[in-house]
């Protein structure tokens, strides 16, 4: 385990450097004039004065070569300085950390809900493949995967904020305001977790040691949770690492729909305003958080699965 941990952590600096190069290059490869984008986002200017554009390029350090811009940005990054936002001229960290915190809460809440719904549903469906519960689960998980977040979010708002007005439709800051965005985000991972757990559990229940356990008189719920559930949990744990990174970066639709000030909304605004320091820092943060989450999930999965643990040694 320790060797594995060291090996995985050793890869992080490489991910950091490659990620930095990527997030620096991608916005610039679009071919758009960043200074013009900044000007338009600030004043809606359609007919820019070349002198104003030149002044903006100088002010924001966009007049040097890409290499100079990259080395300047990267060396500051190594010193913990994410730079100033082009739009607000305030430190990027002032906007990024709170936004990451909001998105982390949102993503963590969605994963908890997804696990709480998906795992028991998958195990229940696996008890009798093809049975009523299994058919309901299959239909539900197809819906959960297929229905886009903006549709599900809208339906939930209509149901719980308009028809039965028990929850707020938008905003962030109170537990009630978190409910609908978390439920909307949870649908997809819950559906996938349920499918995964069902498939794993069906597979495990057909194995010889389970048959032996049953023959020895172990009750059906005990068989299900001790043999099926535990292994299935390993798969879900592995998956959740991938999901956490995805949810952090991919919650743009939910954060815009529910006016949640998370990192998705931050990136949405920054991309529209060509606020490169915010875009770069936001994307890099997501890459690093996703990488760390992946490592943690892998370690957790190994801790849960002794067979895989011995294979990993």
């Amino acid at each position, binding site marked *: 385990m320790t060797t594995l941990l060291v090996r995985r952590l050793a890869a992080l600096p490489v991910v950091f450097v490659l990620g930095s190069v990527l997030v620096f290059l991608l916005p610039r490869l679009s071919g758009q*004039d960043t200074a013009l984008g900044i000007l338009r986002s600030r004043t809606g200017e359609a007919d820019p004065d070349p002198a104003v554009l030149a002044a903006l390029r100088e002010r924001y350090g966009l007049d040097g070569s890409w290499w100079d811009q990259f080395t300047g940005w990267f060396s500051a990054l190594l010193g913990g300085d994410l730079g100033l936002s082009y739009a607000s001229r305030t430190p990027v960290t002032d906007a990024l950390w709170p936004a990451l915190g909001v998105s982390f809460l949102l993503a963590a809440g969605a994963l908890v809900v997804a696990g709480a719904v998906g795992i028991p549903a998958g195990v229940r469906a696996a008890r009798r493949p093809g049975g009523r519960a299994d058919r309901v689960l299959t239909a539900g998980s197809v819906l959960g995967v297929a229905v886009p977040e903006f549709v599900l979010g809208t339906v939930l708002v209509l*149901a719980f904020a*308009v*028809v039965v007005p028990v929850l707020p439709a938008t905003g962030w*800051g109170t537990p009630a305001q978190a409910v609908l965005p978390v439920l909307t985000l949870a649908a997809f991972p819950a559906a996938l977790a349920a499918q995964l757990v069902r498939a794993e559990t069906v597979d495990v229940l057909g194995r010889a040691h389970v048959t032996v356990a049953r023959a020895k008189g172990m009750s059906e719920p005990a068989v299900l949770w001790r043999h099926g559930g535990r292994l299935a949990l390993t798969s879900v744990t592995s998956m959740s690492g991938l999901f956490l990174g995805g949810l952090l970066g991919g919650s743009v639709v939910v954060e815009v*729909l529910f006016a949640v000030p998370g990192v998705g909304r931050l990136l949405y605004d920054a991309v529209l305003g060509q606020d490169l320091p915010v875009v770069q820092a936001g994307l890099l943060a997501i890459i690093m958080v996703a990488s760390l989450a992946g490592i943690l999930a892998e370690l957790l999965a190994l801790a849960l699965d002794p067979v895989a643990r011995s294979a990993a040694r």
Partner: protein
Amino acid sequence: MPVAPAAVPGRRRSAVRVVAALAAGALVLTSCGGGGGTGQVVPDGRLTLAMAFAPGAGYAVDTDDAFVLSQLGATESLVASGPDGRANPALAVSWEQQADPRTWRFELRPGVRFQNGEPLTGEAAASALNWLAGVPAPPRAVKGVGLRAEGDGPAAVRVTTTAPDPILPLRLSSANTAILAPSAYASTPPAVQGTGTGPMTITRLDGVQSATLQRHDRYWGERARLAEVTATFVPDPAARALALRAGDADIAQELPEATALEFTGGDYANEAVAAPRTASLLLNQSRAPFSDVRVRQAVTAAIDRTALGEQALAGSAVPASELFGPAVAWGARTPAPAADPARARQLLAEAGFGPDRPLRVELGTYANRAELPTLATAVQEMLRAAGIEANVRIGDHDAREPELLAGDYDMYLLSRSYLLDVPDAGATLGTDYTCQGSYNINRYCSPAFDALLRPLATETDPAARQEVFRRASAMLTADAVGVPLVHTRATGVGYRVAGYTVDPLAKSLVVPGLAKTG
């Protein structure tokens, strides 16, 4: 004879319940706000706004965030103005061009204090304007005029420009020229909490999520009826509509017309006003085929603008008859001309195009404004009926713009505001339609048109300026310089509110007369 209730099989009973629940839900939904309000103003009420545009630059007054501040009633400028193009007193009560025509003197309103108690003086006004003129990217209203200001005693400010500027008072009505207290400029961007002069003062800012304001009790004008306003920034129009439905917001800005129409009933104040923005089909006159006026006239005749506004855009825009529409005092009120495909075909034949030599062109546009691809598709069909094959190309406007400005295109569908912050169309006419215009995408060049605009350099009388705008617009129509298709509308819906109006110039929303009703 009584009818016995039909027996419902067990499995279907739950389905019936679901249907019943949905029907009940729909009833509740459609009955929301359907009546029952007293219509009486709630004293010292609280109001929540779902605003369309979040501050993107930390409420920097030199950016478009100034519109948010102005709409919230937090800041004011020296001059006020509306779509009639006339300057009205605000923080300045009067103004006069001096013997040196480059200088104007503004007499300040006596007794005005900023929300934090600092007094409004000539020095304070001057330092605010000089700060604005010195930013790296000055806002459109003051860009390139060489603005400088100095206090003229405690109650006046003198403002000078590089060249005589007949519309300087109108420039100083822009939301960007809001005067903040001197202490505001100690930070970057200038601090906006308690440093404005408006009827409401900002008490709390929560990033791009919300802002809270309270009544400014020492306001120089009419006391605000609202005690507190919370502005939430909800960029998604569907979410704003849902927030209004759910009661999270009392006013929702900029709802799509079709969505706004769902809010019916006496408790809703449903506002839609023509905005000073026109979607026009630009035609490249610097090369064939649109260098031939007959081809431009053929395109003009082929397009049914009424159908575009009323059918293609479902009534969400006003069909345009000229460049300037009903949003401004000098705009055309006449109905859009009817389409005449037969005349279009005749003109094309005269220009040498017909079944044997069909006219094929590219029609470019962009998707940032949702109505443009719809308009492009409808225009394509109308042109086809007149014998013109237009190949629609939807791309990124910023990326395409250099080509457009270089004259490398056929047709382009562009949405453009013709007021650019200052309620005077002189700047747009100059940049977009004169021979030396820096944004002349049509590549139109007429010495007669340039001569027509020349008096705008010195004319200060709004009526005389507006007459020039009218004649310029008529000349552009006669020369078939592109085809103005539709004028956009600004919308908003309020629930149980009084004194609510939508400002087509987007400068005001929370005004002293705005109130919550019971």
